[in-house]
């Protein structure tokens, strides 16, 4: 695989690595983990597993988030003990785990947080990426008991995102028995370096371009490496006519060489239950 994030973090340029040599670690990119009050209190559980039959692996997590004061923060936490062969660790609230372990700076400990999570398995190579898994479930309490949630499996950082277009289709309103829905859009900078992102909305009925904008005009900043920004209820955008029920959304990094990914969440307006999917990547 061509590059690796932690190598860059440690100041080791990927270009220094001899080509053809497999990297002796593997990283899963989880697009969003959170602990935040929205329409409900949302939290994210993580199920992190080592499917190798013989190897025990250290597992390191990196939580990247934009703090309430606007600064970009990176918190790191190692799973303890190391993850043995065919073993699993479950965290019912991964952001709280970072807080409880002192990995979140004091200024943010009592704040709602929203960010990405990189999970690195130190002794599993990218070539064996299927042996490692990091499955997130972002959930909220249901009014009558139990929970509602969305799950998404972390993807190999080596393959995630596109330098070209990232495309998804989203919808809003009532679609028969499928209920009344609204849509949230997530945009992630998958590295390397900072970038702004061009976001385009096309009317899904006519194909007409409704709006193109730079994400920084909405977020107030460009996206840092491994930063996620979510636009909630994108059909409420003033540029989207109220009669619009379907959108094709396209994303593209505005800095050459930077990878971007995207996701959609369709929420039921009554239950607030979400349905998560990744965008297609060129």
């Amino acid at each position: 695989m061509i590059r690796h994030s932690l190598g860059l973090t440690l100041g080791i340029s990927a270009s220094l690595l001899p080509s053809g040599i497999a990297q002796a670690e593997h990283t899963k990119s989880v697009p969003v983990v959170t602990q935040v009050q929205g329409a409900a209190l949302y939290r994210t559980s993580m199920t992190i597993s080592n499917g190798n039959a013989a190897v025990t692996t250290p597992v390191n997590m990196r939580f990247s988030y934009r703090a309430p004061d606007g600064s970009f923060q990176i918190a790191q936490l190692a799973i303890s003990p190391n993850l043995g062969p065919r073993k699993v660790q479950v965290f019912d609230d991964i952001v709280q785990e970072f807080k409880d372990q002192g990995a979140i700076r004091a200024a943010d400990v009592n704040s709602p947080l929203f960010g990405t999570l990189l999970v690195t398995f130190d002794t599993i190579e990218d070539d064996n990426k299927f042996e490692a898994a990091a499955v997130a479930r972002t959930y909220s309490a249901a009014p009558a008991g139990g929970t509602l949630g969305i799950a998404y499996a972390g993807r190999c950082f080596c393959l995630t995102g596109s330098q070209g277009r990232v495309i998804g289709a989203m919808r809003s309103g009532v679609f028969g028995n499928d209920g009344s829905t609204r849509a949230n859009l997530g945009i992630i900078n998958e590295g390397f370096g900072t970038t702004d992102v061009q976001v385009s909305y096309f009317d899904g009925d006519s194909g007409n371009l409704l709006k193109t904008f730079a994400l920084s005009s909405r977020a107030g900043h460009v996206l840092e490496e491994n930063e996620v920004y979510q636009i909630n209820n994108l059909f409420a955008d003033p540029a989207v006519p109220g009669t619009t029920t379907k959108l094709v959304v396209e994303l593209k990094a505005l800095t050459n060489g930077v990878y971007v990914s995207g996701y959609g969440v369709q929420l039921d307006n009554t239950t607030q239950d979400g349905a998560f999917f990744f965008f297609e990547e060129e």
Partner: protein
Amino acid sequence: MRTPRIAAAASAILLFVPALVVSAISQRIPVVTQVQGVVFYRTFLMVGVASGSPTVTPRMTLTYRSPVDGSVQTPTLTLPEPIAGGQAQTFEDVIQTFKDSGLIRPQDQSVGLFGTLEVTADALTDPSQLSLVARTFSPAAGGGTNGIAYVGRDAQTAGSGSRIVAFLRNGTFGSDGTTRANIGFVNEGATPVDLRITYLDATTGAKIKDFTLSSVVSRPLGPGEVVQLNNVFVSAGVPGATRLMSVTATPVTAGRISGYAVQLDSVTSDGSFFLMTEEP
């Protein structure tokens, strides 16, 4: 998608070999349904085409095993309207669309159906030009719906010829609620295939059981067919105290398979869907 160096080189070569350019894109949705389970489940489908792409009129092939006589059925429906670049079409209940089009044989019209859906669009050249999003949903007790979403995957490359893996859980995990797990297996290849499935206790690493899928469903998986095993923690041989389990599946004969898991909240029956990891 990020491209490994060797694949990038191969792609560059392909640019100079026009005869090898792909002229159709097919994506498969691992499961579409219209069935009564704990609640009544149906599948919504959205088909989108990227802006700048040619106008296409996709065709959809539903592959299901009839609950009436066990035969595999593969009706194909051409979308009623073409889709231009930047446009999308939706189907509130895609199985019902097939039924309403008269493409489901009479004996299967009034029974629950469960299968895969392959959508093919001629004239597209890259999988990213076609966006399929399915949502399998059910009515919630207090109104509204609960659902799970998943996208279509490139029918030529999805799955593994050697091994797929998932880790599942059962019981209560703090605020994340009480959960049970379903798993599904899809034959992504063109010939029938049986699967060897292994359950391991993911707390101890000890093997729980090892079996072939055909020993459960009495047949191999047909091309494009899906089979789902519900509430796997209550299956025979799994100790009642098991909370974490590793599930591995390998094709018994040459073939390409994929799999998925659904963790359901035991109170709301809301599902959370994710794909099994695939050995390259």
